[in-house]
């Protein structure tokens, strides 16, 4: 029986080493990705303005800050506009890719189109918020990273002249 216990012992040692390596590997992977995923997307306060008095469309400025250690390209982005948390519209115009070096900040103007007929009349009184996703391509990484984004706008009744 001795051989049996020797093999079981070797297997146990390999398993214990493996368990440490799995935990360390997951920790390193998540840590690295967390550093790369630090692209901040924020609504520029007071920048939202309705483009027509019927609240059919509005535009807002969105600030991108690349907090990652690598140059990043925002390849694609989809944002939804919500009135008191309820879907009201989205960005329907094609997104033009932007590239940011580490610590660089860019402000991009985004147009939202309200497509929910039942919500549209509440445009000037509802609490506005945006959410969605963006796909990033980093020079240092071999695959794209998709991040959830979102921010609060607040109540806006200002209409563009």
């Amino acid at each position, binding site marked *: *029986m*001795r*051989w*049996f216990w020797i*093999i*079981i012992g*070797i*297997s*146990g040692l*390999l*398993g*214990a*080493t*493996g*368990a*440490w*390596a*799995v935990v360390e*590997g*997951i920790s*390193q*992977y*998540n840590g*690295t*990705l*967390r550093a790369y*995923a630090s692209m901040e997307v924020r609504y520029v306060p007071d920048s939202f303005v309705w483009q027509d008095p019927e609240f059919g469309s509005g535009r807002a400025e969105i600030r991108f800050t690349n907090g990652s250690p690598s140059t990043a390209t925002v390849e694609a982005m989809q944002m939804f506009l919500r009135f008191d948390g309820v879907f009201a519209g989205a960005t329907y115009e094609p997104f033009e890719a932007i590239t940011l070096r580490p610590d660089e900040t860019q402000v991009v103007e985004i147009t939202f189109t309200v497509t929910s007929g039942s919500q549209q009349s509440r445009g000037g009184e509802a609490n506005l918020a945006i959410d969605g*996703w963006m796909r990033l391509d980093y020079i*240092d*990484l*071999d*695959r794209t*990273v*998709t*991040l*959830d984004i979102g921010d609060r706008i607040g109540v806006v009744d200002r209409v563009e002249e």
Partner: protein
Amino acid sequence: MTRPLSPLAYWLIIALQWFALTIMQAAAIIWSSRALEKYIAPSQSTLLFLGSALVGAFLLGLTIRRGVVLGILTILFCLGGAAIYGATIYSPAWEGIIARVVSFQNYATQQAMFVFIWSLLPASLGAFAGSMTGVGVRQALEPRSTDEPAPWWETRGN
């Protein structure tokens, strides 16, 4: 003279051995896969997980005499290692670091399937070699007189 193991104790020990070796296989895949090489340092050669599949299945082959059980546990060993690897790739989405999108789920699944299939070949060879070597090891380390009955796990159930 060593007391023989009860069937329950024997299979519990085999289950623990399988679990330990599966964790080892998962670690080898994580540290040597191309999908994680930009995120984990130092990244190892892909030979590591192929070698780990060979060695792990070899050790299983040394302790498991029943061919069917060895075959099933060898496949589960490869599958378990690949599943942990797939879960590792997808873990940033569970952690909330990145978005939970279908394309990322598909990527993790595809990578896990890829290493599972690649692990099967060395694991099959390792299990076969272990099973063959096990006979020799048992004969060398466990000389048994002709009157002594074979352990229950070396005989077919009837």
